[in-house]
């Protein structure tokens, strides 16, 4: 009987133990690896939005697929004989790649931007953070709508808060109206006496963070407003006039996201996607290199080099500006069409495509900063507005400020990329302001200045038509030999958001094509 008693006691003990463990199961289901929104400091999301604005976190994503594969080649900063990866060089169709930027931006930029916006709203301790959230959110959306046209805006990023799973596409005009309003109001609401957001990668270490943000916001406002040059000059003029009074004053005010080498999340996303040192198949375009060479541009040895690796892995590089050679757009290696075979060109280097200039490691490496908006760009835009409409000051002065700043802003990439003021001034003499040719000059300089900010370079070209590029007519291109005007929506939109997609496509003259134009793109 002793045995029986021991057995029963043990059983009873274990049962009591099991019952004692019966606590709230909900506690078990509380994630110990994270916290809830009310306890969260939204500053951490400002960092995320600023970092992700420089490129997607998705491996294999938008930096390659759209920024370099499409925009940089369209705008002839770069060229490539690899017709697959760099389809933009030949205006070939790569519908999957063209949609990458759209796809990645909503999940890695819009989503945290919306969370940041909502978590910081109506909280006095986050008053300035909330204004920064509005500015960054607008900046994120501007970049998406510039590439695609009508996009989901008002309902976007609200999957969690409003349970909107298939957001409607908004007209670009409505989007721009709201973007301008948001940035303008945010700048006005920034308050020197309120919080100094700690998650701000751009200006948290600046002397006066809030003042810097006002200038940054106004510069962004100028950029957004100028996009409407052709389609709504009245609105453009009114916002430029308002903002011009307090834009960036020098390169010290530039909006720069620094990167940290080491992982996908923190490092420079361009370098991750197109390979820092040798950028594989991507070369600088002949249009860019000859433009720089012709004017003795001191930036050439900083941004370009000829780089090669031999079969034993030994590396040679050459930054001599006289040796730099841009690759002509629209060619492949080999093939049965001698007119399109780069190896048949008289100008082809002895060592083939390895002999063309590439993006220099100074500006393309995993720790390189991303310049998201600069004083030089702003000055060029103000010069454009001044020349065009006689507002916002003197065009010649803005232009000169722009040229000098555009050359010296490379100092952000480190000592090896620093060009002194004297070289900048001599360069200015080569490209000095010529009132009769001012718009072409201003916007060509903008094009040079926005090397590495490819979406911006392409958008400004579409707005102004400058500089004059050299469209190619590669067999099988889908633009009839013209430079593309937009990117096509990702094909998965037909699967996950078909009705709204169809509505948006119906509004596009010419359909969902890269030759169709976005609303603001009405230049001849």
């Amino acid at each position, binding site marked *: 009987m002793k*045995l*029986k008693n021991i*057995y029963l*006691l*043990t*059983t009873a*003990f274990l049962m009591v133990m099991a019952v004692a*463990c019966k606590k*709230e199961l*909900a506690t*078990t*289901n509380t994630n*110990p*690896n*994270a916290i809830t*929104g009310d306890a969260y*400091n939204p500053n*951490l999301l400002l*960092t*995320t939005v600023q970092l992700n604005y420089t490129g997607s976190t998705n*491996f*294999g994503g938008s930096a390659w697929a759209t920024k370099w594969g499409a925009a940089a080649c369209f705008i002839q900063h770069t060229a490539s*004989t*690899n017709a697959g990866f760099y389809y933009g060089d030949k205006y070939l*169709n790569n*519908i999957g790649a063209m949609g990458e930027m759209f796809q990645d931006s*909503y*999940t890695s930029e819009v*989503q945290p931007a919306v969370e940041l916006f909502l978590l910081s709203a109506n909280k006095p301790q986050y008053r300035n953070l909330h204004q920064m959230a509005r500015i960054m959110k607008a900046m994120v959306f501007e970049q998406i709508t510039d590439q695609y046209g009508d996009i*989901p805006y008002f309902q*976007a990023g609200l*999957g*969690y808060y409003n*349970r*909107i799973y*298939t957001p409607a596409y908004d007209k670009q005009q409505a989007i721009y109206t709201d973007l301008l309003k948001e940035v303008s109001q945010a700048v006005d609401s920034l308050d020197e006496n309120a919080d100094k957001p700690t998650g701000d990668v751009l200006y*948290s270490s600046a002397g006066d963070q809030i003042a810097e943000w006002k200038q940054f916001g106004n510069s962004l406002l100028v950029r957004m407003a100028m996009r409407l040059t052709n389609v709504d000059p009245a609105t453009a003029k009114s916002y430029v006039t308002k903002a011009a009074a307090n834009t960036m004053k020098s390169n010290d005010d530039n909006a720069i996201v*620094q990167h940290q080498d*080491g*992982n996908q*999340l*923190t490092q420079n996303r361009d370098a*991750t996607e197109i*390979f820092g*040192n040798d950028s*594989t*198949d991507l070369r600088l375009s002949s249009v860019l290199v000859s433009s720089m060479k012709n004017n003795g541009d001191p930036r050439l040895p900083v941004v370009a080099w000829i780089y090669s690796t031999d079969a*034993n*892995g030994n590396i040679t590089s050459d930054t001599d500006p006289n040796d730099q050679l841009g690759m002509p757009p629209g060619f492949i*290696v*080999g093939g*049965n069409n001698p007119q399109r075979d780069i190896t048949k060109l008289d100008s082809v280097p002895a060592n*083939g495509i390895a002999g063309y200039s590439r993006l220099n490691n100074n500006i393309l490496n995993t720790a390189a900063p991303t310049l998201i908006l600069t004083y030089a760009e702003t000055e060029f835009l103000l010069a454009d507005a001044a020349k065009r409409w006689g507002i916002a000051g003197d065009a010649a002065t803005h232009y000169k400020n722009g040229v000098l700043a555009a050359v010296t802003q490379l100092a952000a990439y480190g000592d090896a990329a620093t060009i002194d003021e004297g070289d900048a001034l001599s360069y200015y003499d080569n490209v000095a302001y010529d009132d009769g040719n001012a718009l072409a000059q201003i916007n060509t300089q903008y094009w040079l200045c926005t090397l590495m900010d490819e979406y911006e370079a392409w958008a400004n070209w579409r707005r102004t038509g400058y500089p004059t590029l050299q469209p190619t007519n590669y*067999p*099988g291109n889908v633009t009839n030999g013209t430079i593309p005007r937009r990117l*096509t929506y990702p*094909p998965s*939109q037909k699967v996950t*958001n078909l009705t709204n997609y169809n509505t948006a496509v119906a509004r596009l003259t010419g359909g*969902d094509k890269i030759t169709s134009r976005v609303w603001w793109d009405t230049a001849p």
Partner: protein
Amino acid sequence: MQKNLYYKSLIFLCKNVYLTVLFIVLMGGFAIAQDQAGSKLVTGTVTDATTKEPLFGVTVTLKGTKTKVITDFKGIYSIAANSTSVLAFSSTGYNPTEVTVGGQTVIDIKLEPSNEQLKDVVVTALGITKEKRAVGYSVAEVKGASLTEARENTFVNSLEGRVAGVSVSGVATGPNGASNVVIRGITNMTGNNQPLYILNGIPLVNNNYATTDVGGGYGGKDGGDGIGDINPDDIESVSILKGAAATALYGYRGSNGVVLITTKKGKKGEGLGVEINSNYVIENVIDETNFQTEYGQGYNNAKPVSAADALGSMESSWGAKLDGSNTYQFDGVQRPYSEAAKGNLGRFYQAGGNFTNTVSFSKGFGDDGATRFSVSNLNDQSYVPNAGLKRYTFNQVTNLNLDKHLTLDLSSQYVTEYTKNAPNVSDAVGNLNWGPMFVPPNINITTLAGPNHNGTIANGNELNPFSDPYTTNPYFAAYKFIGAIHRDRFTGSANTKYTFDNGIFMGLALAYDYTNDRNTNVEPIGTGYLVDQGITGDMTEQNVKQTELNLDFTTGKKIKFSKDFSGDILLGVNYRKSIQEFLNASGQNFAIPFLYNVGNLENYTESYALNKEEFQSVYGSAGVSYKGFLYVTVTGRNDWYSTLAPGKINYLYPSINGSFIFSELLHIPNLDMGKLRFSYADVGGAADNPYQTLQTYSIQGTLNITNGIFPIGSAGNGQVPNSALRPSSRSEIEGGLELDFFKNRLTFDLSVYQKKVTDDIVPVGIDYTSGYSSALLNVGTLKYTGVELELGGQPVKTKNFSWDIHLNATYTKGKVVSLGGQPQITLGNEAGDWGANAYTQQVVGKEPLQIIALDPARDSQGKIIIDPGLGAPDPTLAQPKDFGSAISPWMGGINNTFRYGHFNLSFLIDGKFGGKLFSNTNLIAYQQGLSKLTLPGRDVLYGTNQQSAQAYYGDWQSANEGMFVYDASFIKFRQLIVGYDFDTKKLFNNKIHGLRLSFVCHNVFTIKKHTPNIDPESTYSASIYTQGLEAPAVPYSRTLGLNLNIKL
């Protein structure tokens, strides 16, 4: 003294719940002291009364004492006894006999075989054995012997084609790949559909830590699963519970079906009780490719003119017609421009060898119980270069009758396993399978090995023959990438049962499963795409610890109400807690080259995550039988799940099953048993993963720059959480007919079922402009109808020759009824970098897992519209189209066994019919000009744009992915075994009690298939997200070898 030992053991057992687990190990090799007392020695021989053969293992008990002995293999015993002692002789299958000793010292006994036939019993839920006739649902049993000879590293793969209603397929991911087992169709539309595995009452954790990118085809590797750890030599039988009623007592976790694995128990038998099984097989790749051999490397009909040119076109077979002239290849060497790629698979993959040895010891203690211990060593030198698997398994089962009331069953298993280099699959990154498959026809794959024979150049960097550095040199991927998995796993259970004199029993079972995985992944220094980024190698070291504790208390009683009515009742409580801990260290840039240790990394981050789940349940079952021909059982279970929203955590579900043995009433000639059965059950389902009810915020890392140190925040994980998550529900109704004719010479078992899943918890793929890729919703409704037939027969049976045939056939038809207003849910897609845009979807109104691919624009007659400029369809006008379900509605198998004298021969033929498969391999081969379909018109220019054949076929490929959706039906000659049982009596004078040598062959050949260049069963992960989508993975293989079984 002996009793004392038991008491001590028991007290020790009871002291601490966790210590009991240790105790189980200690119990492994214990022996029992034998009392020796008495005044004289009695000896004798025990023989079979009919055959006159001596009987081994007969228990001879000194009645009224604990003293007992067992006869040896000559039937001889000796025992100390008094003249008043009574000797009791007992042995299974014989009538017990008693003799009073008196003056005798030699007592010879003839035992009469008992007339009572062993009743046909099956193992059902909770390991309860029931008479087959009392079971109102379908249970399939597979004997362990059929899993050991022509074996696979994962025993469940051997079940393929053997059981109706059970779809089994291996995954093409190397020696320790996961298995995909689906019972009665996919019921979890987006989640885990693998059954619950129970090993001797221990629920096994069967997580698969594959890093394969299940939603996007971007590569990764398969970390294996939990069920692969079982040694087939230890398995006595496998019982498969298919329907909801059969598994109702397991709660929601049984809702995908339950596979009950019973390992061999100790038993008294002939000889020493030692059994040795040795299995050696060689494994060779099966080359299914049939690519074009007319055109070589290059672009647009031109062959490479320089080394750089060759390097840039390694992924293109759009070159000139092969003419044998010396032509540059990627390494600058000129080689003849002629066919050299045939046989690349055979050249790259090597002859694999798999050697498995198991030794087991079995010992019976008469009425006190028995024990068995086994050790096994598996050494698989995979046919995948530089990959392999080593596994040691220790298994112990001890069953003790502590006294007439109390039993104690102890079971434990320890596995230590090392997977050397699980290969990367699907996308080209680090995927060693990519190169051998896709190099142009004039490239011999061995040239990629380079001067060091491992895919490196002089300085140790990757010899990269591809223009895209993300396409890894296969030799570099094989010899320089590291993908090691070290696993240590302990599973143990202690199960005690006390039965009172009045028949009431109380059982307490404790089961614990502990797994520790260490996954080491190194992208080595010199990897092409890392060099390009200035990174000197990277590494991830991950430690995953998983534990699961199950505590079950049961009580019940068998009741006899009257002469005709009897019944049984069972009540139980279950508490389960499972914990997973992930500790991760990863970083880049090794300070000292080639020292692959995380401590040697310059940039280094660590992370930790903890997943906890807790479940509480009460359950009960009551059965009634009437006159042995009518049986009814009802069950109920209530589960409380931690993974659901507060307030919605519990679910009560009932089941009922019954059987009617009509042959007891209607006497049909030659019908031994005729049974009709019926069951109904409703089972609730919880969310697969914890923490899905609230949006949570965390940090992803830190940005450390001159401006300061910034934590990088994140909100959510890409999926909209659901604060109202409630249980899903599956209800199933099943009927069946079983007929046994001619004393089991012909058996027939038919099951028909219909089941319905509602409120399935589904991460609905939502448009990412919502900021999220999915939202977790209770929206799915799914219906299934199925018919399963098992036919067994023995058409011929003579003294020397017999022929057994077993046939199974399954028909399953499912339909997605509703997705909460959404027309479809997108599962996986093959987008990758390769231009493909094929998806799988759950589509309302269609069978589950539809394959969607682009179809070109067509006119009203259905003809493809050709764009005049392109000469081909315009890819931008292509529309996604539904090409049918990835699931085969029909499957079946036929197993034949012939015995002639000492020889036997068995073979298995199985097949699946009607499913579809999207083949990315075929798409890539087409895109790269390797496919034979790209041969016509290579020299022609197409359309008004005058585009080349390469561009023309490129348009066809991107407009018409539907071309690469194939019928995945197949018939395979799966397995062949030819065995010989040596006459050990004659040859070894009974010193050896069994010796069997078999020739075995698995995946003998494919009789019929429709998928060019690939095996129709090829998948690169067991996840539902990749089913129906093929991508470059480890090619199919054939094993051939010998199995030797010795019983001592």
